[in-house]
């Protein structure tokens, strides 16, 4: 199976105006989405943002209050899950713990009435790939977490679904193992070419795994794009603040125009925004602007140049340090690399490179410009 | 209703003093006083009588009065379920707790209770205090004096009841001239109270009108009382339960089979509740006017005559049960079914005193008062049948008929193991009524079971007991047996 990430991509799944309400509470608010064949799409967002609900609606475990879902052009909005041929991996794996691993894997195939020989063949193939051959005869209750995840995945893949849905499957794995399994998963998806939708609240995970990320908040789609797009061009304050750790520094600034020069002003400092003056003016800047700069883009400048900052906290993380800086009375975070040997309590000089800065409307939260100057 | 009870209560309280005029009661009281003086019993000593809930209303006032008169504390222990009484009595026989001083039980359980060593023979006390069982104007109705008091040649109980069955019929229908005309035209003989069972069956057929909501009869064919419909025919035909010399059952004989066939043939004129229901079915069907006649206990007389409980009040007649002709003579036989008797526990603290209490309750005047009140005890002494209050409670027409039926009544099997013999008979008769067995099978299976019971209990003893029991049957039945060669004359006590 080949990857299909080029411009000529088929739409596998389509959500049009999908809406879900529970007793007046809006869980999913009119979502439109196209999912392409062979892609790894992540649903990302805080708890309660509606990502799992959306996933379950795609699987057929919930029914939309409104809107339509199309799979391969066919309307499946009210089709029962049994008929959709969509695989689902649950957060706690939902293995049939009274059955052996073999029977778990065989379940979907036996329902489809494949011959025992064929079933056996497929299972052995998949078991080898997932390194489950040794545990095939074991009862599902006796497995460790990593094996369980693989069985859950294998079980879903064996039925050769059009689409595989995963609901935070790595949530219960301890950090060290988690990264390894993440990498496994990504590799597998590449090899199989299977379309996957992966739900997570961990933005790091989404950034590593996803071909595209769908950022959700309060039932709405905030932004959908590749990890790079989302990182470099967050479409609003929410996305900007959600992606990246430590989160983007956000500074409220005033817009000033003096003799054909446009500035944004903060405390005693000013930055020129001439290059994006048009966008800024269109965004009704009198209602307030926010300047955003990611900690990793805050640069140390030579002594005496730029902005003086008091180092409040240094979090040494080996290769990099996270600094909490106090400028005037505001706290900002900065990430410095390569053993800069900064000490707490010292005064350092930093600068905000305009080409890495972002501007947002304080009023609507929408992005005004990315990369000024 | 309640004011009536109050008046009765007052009258009885007054009559209570009259009880002292009754020599039987007087002797009992004197005996109790003597025992108290001798220190055998103390004032305030408790005596407990086990009774059934049906007698509570009748005995409670008497017991209270006696307590007052003697200074003793006499209590009634009321059991709601008849079968429980037997169980509790047997339990007492094993446990010997002394919790009960007197038992009021079915009179045919006396045999079992005596054999279990539970009750004491009363011969000496009866001789000493004379409760006037057999002699005098207040004596028991014969032959009840025998079968409610004796077992195995000894006295064990004082009978407190008369359960000879009565034939209750729709007087209005029987005496209706139109009905009489149609009957005579159809069957060629007059419509009148039957002398023979054959007549009974004809009249039943005649009055079976399901389309009018009237069925011919209601006879008991239930699990508990089926034998009461078969036995009177059987005995009247000259049947006898067991051979007097060998104790072999004699029920699967032509008399027995014929009797059963006759009863079963009536089923098409009766409701199926005759065998699927229980004893209370007669007490609903007859007063509701759904059957022409029924054979039941005297208490049905109250129910059927009281306008509050009966739709046919005022239309009820009472008759003797029919019989059979043998060589031109009519022999009637009425089953005496149940019959409550007082017996004295061996394990009470003062059996003689307990006996005296029983004698007092049993005395002509006191027992008359008890029976006048509503309950399951019915008149059993001759003076009861002359007591205007008592007769008023029963209905003037019922009294004489009850007396007649009592005089022609024969007892339930009262041997050791009576419950077993009767239950096996009942269950097979009930099965035959349900069509599960043919009459021959029912009776021969019963006979086989009876043999087995007799063997298990010891044939020799049973033969002795049976020979004594034969002597308690009414004279005319014994005469019939001798006449038919069923019983050798020397064993018939004639």
């Amino acid at each position, binding site marked *: 199976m080949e990857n299909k990430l080029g411009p000529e991509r088929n739409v596998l799944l389509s959500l049009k105006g999908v809406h879900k309400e529970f007793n007046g509470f809006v869980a999913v608010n009119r979502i439109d989405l196209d999912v392409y064949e062979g892609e790894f799409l992540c649903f990302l967002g805080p708890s309660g943002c509606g990502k799992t609900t959306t996933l379950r609606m795609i699987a057929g475990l919930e029914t939309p209050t409104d809107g339509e879902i199309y799979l391969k052009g066919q309307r499946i909005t009210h089709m029962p899950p049994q008929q959709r041929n969509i695989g689902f991996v649950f957060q706690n794996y*939902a293995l*049939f713990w009274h059955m052996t691993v073999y029977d778990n894997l065989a379940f979907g195939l036996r329902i489809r009435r494949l011959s025992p020989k064929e079933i056996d063949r497929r299972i052995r193939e998949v078991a080898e790939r997932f390194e489950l051959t040794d545990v095939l005869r074991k009862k599902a209750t006796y497995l460790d977490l990593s094996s369980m995840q693989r069985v859950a995945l294998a079980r879903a893949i064996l039925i050769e679904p059009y689409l595989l849905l995963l609901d935070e499957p790595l949530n219960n794995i301890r950090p060290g193992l988690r990264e390894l399994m993440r990498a496994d998963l990504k590799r597998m998806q590449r090899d199989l070419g299977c379309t996957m939708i992966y739900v997570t609240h961990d933005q790091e995970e989404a950034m590593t795994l996803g071909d595209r990320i769908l950022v959700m908040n309060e039932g709405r789609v905030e932004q959908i794009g590749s990890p790079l797009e989302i990182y470099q061009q967050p479409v609003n304050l929410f996305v900007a603040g959600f992606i990246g750790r430590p989160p983007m520094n956000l500074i409220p600034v005033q817009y000033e125009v003096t003799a054909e020069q446009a500035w944004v002003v903060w405390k005693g400092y000013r930055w020129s925004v001439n290059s994006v003056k048009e966008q800024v003016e269109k965004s009704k800047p009198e209602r307030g602007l926010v300047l955003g700069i990611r900690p990793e883009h805050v640069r140390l400048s030579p002594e005496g140049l730029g902005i003086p900052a008091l180092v409040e906290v240094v979090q040494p993380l080996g290769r990099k340090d996270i600094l909490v800086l106090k400028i005037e009375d505001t706290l900002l975070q900065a990430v410095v690399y390569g053993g800069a040997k900064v000490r707490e309590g010292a005064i350092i000089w930093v600068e905000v490179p305009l080409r890495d800065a972002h501007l947002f409307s304080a009023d609507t939260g929408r992005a005004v410009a990315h990369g000024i100057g | 209703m309640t004011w009536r009870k109050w008046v009765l209560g007052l009258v009885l309280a007054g009559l209570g003093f009259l009880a002292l005029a009754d020599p039987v009661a007087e002797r009992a009281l004197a005996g109790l006083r003597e025992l108290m003086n001798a220190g055998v019993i103390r004032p305030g000593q408790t005596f407990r009588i086990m009774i059934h809930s049906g007698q509570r209303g009748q005995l409670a006032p008497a017991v209270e009065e006696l307590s007052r008169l003697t200074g003793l504390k006499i209590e009634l222990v009321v059991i709601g379920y008849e079968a429980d009484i037997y169980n509790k009595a047997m339990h007492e026989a094993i446990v010997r707790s002394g919790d009960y001083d007197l038992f009021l039980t079915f009179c045919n359980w006396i045999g079992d209770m005596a054999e*279990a*060593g539970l009750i004491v023979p009363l011969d000496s006390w009866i001789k000493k205090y004379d409760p006037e069982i057999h002699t005098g104007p207040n004596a028991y109705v014969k032959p009840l004096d025998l079968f409610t008091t004796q077992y195995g040649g000894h006295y064990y109980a004082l009978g407190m009841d008369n359960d000879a069955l009565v034939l209750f019929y729709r007087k209005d229908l029987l005496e209706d001239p139109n009905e009489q005309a149609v009957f005579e035209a159809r069957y060629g003989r007059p419509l009148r109270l039957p002398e023979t069972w054959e007549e009974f069956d004809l009249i039943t057929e005649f009055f079976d009108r399901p389309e009018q909501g009237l069925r011919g009869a209601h006879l008991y064919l239930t699990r508990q009382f089926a034998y009461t419909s078969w036995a009177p025919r059987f005995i009247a035909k000259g049947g006898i339960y067991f051979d007097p010399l060998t104790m072999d059952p004699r029920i699967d004989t032509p008399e027995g089979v014929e009797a059963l066939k006759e009863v079963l043939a009536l089923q098409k004129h009766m409701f*199926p509740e005759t065998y699927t229901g229980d004893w209370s079915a007669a007490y609903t069907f007859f007063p509701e006017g759904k059957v022409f006649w029924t054979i039941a206990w005297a208490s049905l007389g109250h129910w059927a005559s009281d306008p509050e409980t009966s739709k046919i009040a005022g239309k009820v007649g009472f008759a003797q049960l029919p019989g059979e002709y043998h060589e031109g003579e009519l022999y009637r036989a009425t089953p005496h079914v149940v019959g409550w008797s007082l017996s004295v526990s061996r394990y009470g603290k003062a059996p003689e005193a307990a006996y005296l209490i029983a004698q007092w309750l049993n005395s002509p005047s006191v027992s008359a008062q008890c029976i006048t009140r509503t309950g399951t005890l019915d008149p059993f002494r001759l003076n009861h049948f002359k007591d205007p209050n008592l007769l008023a409670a029963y209905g003037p027409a019922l009294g004489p008929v009850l007396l007649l039926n009592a005089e022609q009544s024969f007892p339930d099997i009262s041997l050791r193991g009576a*419950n077993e013999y009767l239950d096996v008979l009942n*269950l097979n008769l009930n*099965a035959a009524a*349900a069509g599960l067995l043919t009459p021959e099978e029912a009776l021969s299976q019963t006979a086989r079971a009876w043999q087995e019971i007799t063997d298990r209990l010891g044939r020799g003893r049973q033969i002795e007991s049976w020979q004594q029991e034969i002597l308690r049957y009414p004279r005319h039945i014994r005469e019939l047996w001798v006449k038919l060669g069923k019983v050798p004359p020397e064993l018939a006590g004639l």
Partner: protein
Amino acid sequence: MVCFHGDEGALMIKEKGKFKRATSSIGSIANLLNRESVFKIMLVTPMQLLLSFLLVPPFAIVIYLALVNWQPIFGSWTEAPFVGVSNFVRLFSDRQFFWALARTVVIVAISVSFQFILGMALALLFNREFHGKKVCVSVILYPMMLPWVVVGFIFYLLFLDHGPVNYVISSVFGPGATVSWFSSSVTALVAIILADIWQWTPFMFLMSYSALGAVPKELREAAMTLGANLWQIFRYVTFPTIKPVVLIALIIRALECFKIFDLIFIMTRGGPGVSTESMSLYIYRMGFRYGQLSFAAAVAIVVLVAISLVARIGVRPLLKEEL
């Protein structure tokens, strides 16, 4: 002096600023009492004594009675003659015994099966939320709360020849179709079994319902996404998960049903004849109505042995599979 529990529950005493194990005699008794195994034994002892006192002597007496020939009307039970196994011989040649046994087994088989299926079906139906669910559940449970006697009497009245059931039948199918329920063994047993089913289906419902509630929703959903229809989900996922609880409920109910007495006693007294007698009624009749306590004791022992055998042989493999 300070006492507390140190390692392994041993009693520790603080003396002169140091902690050491209690070694004095009182201390060591306290130590002994505090050891877990002894404590466990102590907890169980009162109940164990009570049960032994209540169960062992009567059981010994029953065995004694079965080996002698005694009825209350024979006199003292301590002087009853020893007859060895003749009571047992007699019971094995009594056709009524086998009929009663077979009948009881049939009643249990039919009654418990229906209760199980109905209870399970109801539990599946109720395994979701809907308006008034709590009320419905309470209503379903009512029959179980009624005393046996009341249920027996109600059904007796229902199935009388002129009762409501026949009334409905005659209205729907005409008067010729009515059945005289208590006049034959088979129809009477139908009425009895219906009474038992009505009364005890709520029990099976309750057990199934609780067991179902413990099945994680995800298991069923996973099966759904794998393509299983409702029946397949029930058969391969739900049922195996609840099997242990359901099995226990079935065993409890079957053992209870085997003792069936009140219903039959109220409704037919075992009649007509003895054609609806269950094992309990047979023992009751023999033992309490006829007073043949020795014989009844022998029957009781045979029944006990039979049930124990069935329990061991029949039930063990079923349970083993789960554990």
